[in-house]
């Protein structure tokens, strides 16, 4: 029997090595065999030692979340069995390393298969081959083609010839072991997607997608400082940039990294840096400077659980507040948040275009989960790649005096670049006259605060054109979900489930976090019975921003354990709120819009 949607988890100790690699290679094999893949993982921060787990959801239809219950657990050790056995659904499968663990005495409804991984590895004299033996066994158990497996292994591990042969040997050993010793009795063969043509799917993670996006956006200058989970953006670009004449610098710290990017931008380059929370904190002062001196720059923050060093390999959406408000005094900037691995690519292009057009720092809020998650997605639509230019100053040939910070209706002023004759000015962190010369008079400060705020506010007008909103579900539904970032995956699945059961739900995700697309949100939340705002942080940072902006009561659904929402969690909440507030005859009067919000509603007749 074949299933169309399958969740497999691999667990073990990272000291023995290769748990994540095992999972990742296996997921790639499934992807190459034509399945949709959505992976997630937890790893300890230590380089060696400590329990790790990798989870892959493999399906022959599109998938949007990591999956709740396990269809199969692959346990490399006893600890993995102890931790996860209870998560295996009725009818599921446990594959375990019988040299390092035993299943519980009662395994009701779960089929167990023993693989003596250590012994098999010993028999082929390749102790470190346990992972590939396990992969070979899984390929057989799932009914995936062996040739696909060898293709992937060649691509992933193919650098050294003899090693490759040894690896493929181990793979075959695992494959054969299952063939000879195990008669499958459980339903676990997988069929590729019916509508998936052979070679049109990308297999990559969020960091890779955003790095490709930066490349597409015309970024040719990167400076960064290593920090989990952002490091591999720098590592990827370090390999790519020299090929295309790009400059990449590993700076001495994050302050230097942003400083270098800003210096490059001052000369006209499309420049960026990438970091995680602790690095973003260090950058705060220079972000204020970029607002003040009106320098375009893109700052990627791959959010990880904090505060402080926190949990470097766990997810959060807790950097919204520092991204929007982290500054001394009012320092408006643009904040963008992609919603998926695929979206990382497109939003990166938007990030650069917004930075250049509005001459401002743009903070790009990815997260740990999205950054490491390997997913199968459609190839990027390169026809959507467009470059918005910076408004450059042009000399009229006469000895005119140039005002870099001219007060304009839009708040954007033409910028001269070094080398342009007559355009000499100082990019200032001090409050300044239109010429750039320092000035502290109240009128000047007032006008400039207005100018900088006006400029950023007007960026909200890009929301529709740049596709900074994602809206789906039932128009006019009594319950709406308003959200941001990567929580959209489980939300999508939970809503689909709720709809099947007759509930009406509509969803809006804003990729533009600041400035908020006010009109669209106001219209969206007007006259609803309940607004659910799910997010991965302790205080409901987005929910509070929405409440403050619109004076509306919202249900803030918060999760902050360092792991993403499950579909079940979102679904349960939808169901609960629906029963309490949205049933046709129920009482829901309290959730009607306030007068203030009503006034802002743009009615579509």
């Amino acid at each position: 029997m074949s299933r169309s949607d399958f969740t497999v988890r691999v667990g073990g100790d990272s000291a023995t090595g290769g748990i994540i690699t095992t999972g990742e290679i296996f997921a790639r094999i499934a992807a190459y065999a034509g399945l949709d893949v959505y992976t997630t993982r937890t790893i300890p921060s230590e380089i060696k030692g400590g329990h790790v787990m990798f989870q892959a959801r493999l399906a022959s239809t599109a998938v949007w979340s990591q999956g709740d219950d396990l269809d199969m657990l692959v346990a490399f050790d006893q600890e993995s069995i102890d931790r996860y056995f209870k998560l295996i659904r009725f009818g599921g499968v446990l594959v375990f390393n019988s040299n390092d663990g035993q299943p519980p005495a009662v395994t009701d409804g779960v089929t167990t298969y023993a693989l003596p991984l250590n012994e098999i590895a010993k028999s082929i004299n390749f102790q470190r081959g346990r992972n590939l033996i396990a992969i070979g066994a899984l390929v057989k158990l799932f009914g995936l083609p062996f040739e696909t497996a060898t293709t992937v292994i060649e691509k992933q591990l193919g650098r050294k010839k003899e090693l490759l042969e040894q690896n493929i040997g181990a793979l075959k050993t695992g494959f054969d072991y299952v063939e000879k010793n195990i008669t499958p009795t459980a339903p676990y063969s997988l069929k590729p997607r019916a509508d998936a043509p052979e070679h049109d799917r990308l297999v990559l993670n969020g960091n890779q997608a955003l790095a490709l996006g930066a490349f597409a956006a015309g970024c040719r200058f990167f400076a960064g400082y290593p920090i989990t989970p952002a490091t591999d953006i720098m590592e990827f670009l370090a390999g790519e940039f020299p090929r295309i004449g790009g400059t990449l610098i590993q700076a001495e710290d994050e302050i230097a990294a942003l400083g270098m990017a800003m210096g490059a931008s001052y000369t006209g380059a499309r420049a960026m840096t990438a970091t995680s929370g602790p690095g973003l904190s260090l950058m705060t002062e220079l972000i204020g400077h970029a607002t003040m001196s009106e320098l375009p720059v893109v700052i990627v923050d791959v959010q990880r659980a904090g505060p402080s060093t926190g949990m470097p390999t766990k997810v959060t959406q807790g950097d919204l507040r520092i991204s929007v408000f982290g500054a001394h005094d009012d320092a408006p900037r643009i904040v963008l948040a992609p919603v998926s691995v695929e979206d990382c690519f497109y939003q990166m292009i938007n990030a650069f275009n917004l930075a250049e057009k509005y001459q401002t720092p743009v903070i790009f809020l990815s997260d740990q989960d999205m950054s490491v998650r390997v997913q199968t997605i459609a190839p990027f639509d390169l026809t959507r790649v467009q470059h918005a230019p910076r408004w450059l100053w042009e000399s009229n040939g006469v000895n005119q005096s140039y005002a870099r910070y001219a007060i304009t209706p839009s708040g954007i002023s033409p910028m001269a670049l070094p080398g342009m004759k007559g355009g000499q000015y100082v990019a200032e962190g001090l409050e300044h006259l239109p010429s750039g010369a320092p000035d502290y008079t109240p009128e000047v400060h007032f006008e400039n605060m207005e100018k900088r705020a006006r400029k950023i506010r007007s960026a909200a007008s890009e929301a529709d054109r740049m596709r900074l909103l994602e809206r789906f579900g039932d128009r006019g539904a009594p319950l709406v979900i308003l959200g941001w970032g990567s929580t959209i995956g489980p939300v999508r699945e939970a809503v689909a489930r709720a709809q099947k059961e007759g509930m009406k739900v509509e969803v809006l995700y804003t990729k533009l976090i600041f400035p908020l697309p006010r009109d669209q949100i106001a219209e969206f939340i007007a006259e609803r019975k309940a607004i659910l705002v799910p997010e991965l942080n302790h205080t409901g940072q987005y929910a509070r921003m929405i409440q403050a902006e619109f004076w509306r009561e919202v249900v803030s659904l918060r999760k902050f354990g360092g792991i993403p929402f499950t579909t079940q969690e979102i679904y349960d909440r939808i169901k609960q709120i629906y029963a309490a507030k949205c049933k046709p005859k129920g009482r829901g009067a309290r959730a009607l819009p306030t007068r203030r919000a009503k006034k802002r509603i743009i009615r579509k007749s």
Partner: protein
Amino acid sequence: MPSNLIQSMQPQTRTFELVNLSANDYKSGVRPVWCPGCGDYGVLASFSKALADLRIPPEQIVIVSGIGCSSRFPIFVNSYGLHGTHGRALPLATGVKMAQPELVVVAVGGDGDAFSIGMGHFPHIARRNPDITYLVMDNEIYGLTKGQPSPTSPVGMEKKASPYGTLETPLDPILLALASNASFVARGFSSKPKELTELIKAAMQHKGFSFVQIISPCVSFNDMTQEFKGATLPIPATHDPRDRLAAMKLAEHPGGMYLGIFYQQPRPTYEEKMQSLQDKNARADYDLPEMMSRFMR
């Protein structure tokens, strides 16, 4: 020219045409906010003269600074400028230079900016060796914040923030630069304008990171003009500026403060190395579809 400037040094080859302007043409017209008598006036004068002598077009120059009295410098010069945050002149300057290597990039600032808050950047720019000149106006005090001890203040200095005298030993910027392997290390004095002009010119003509410590007294909070005048003396003509250990010995000289070029040893610049890295790996046909295709299953 300073007596011991390496004679074989070729002037920089520039991609732009040289201009004929007076020192005054290199002033922006914004009146400096410095106290009357501040050493920084002398530095500005020598600097403008150096630019006029080197005949660099104003639009090809970028002056990058941090925060402090001395960091106001770019505002008063007719050139492009980037007045950054406290201590961050060097990374900003590195970004400018690496993105646009033809530009003439000069970083300026004070002793606090360079050796306290911005200290973390100093050894690294020396390691990278971009063709950037760094002029540090050292007054052994925090001028802008009205007179607190700085990393170069003598031990025991009594100021409002150290009413019983400072406990820290001062650091020596020349030794620091030498230890960091800066490829050009010199010391000038704002009260010796002619020599200072020549030093700045030599630094700007040096290809690579050139560091000039400029004694520039703060007349309001630490007026040492007379003491410095008494203590300074030229580096002996016999000194070989390629000898780093000899340079260190000179810097350690207990009898006074030497002025001139301590060390100069050109080596490939950061931007040259980056360029050759790019040349070696460049692929004309490499584009987005190909990059993307590597992720295709």
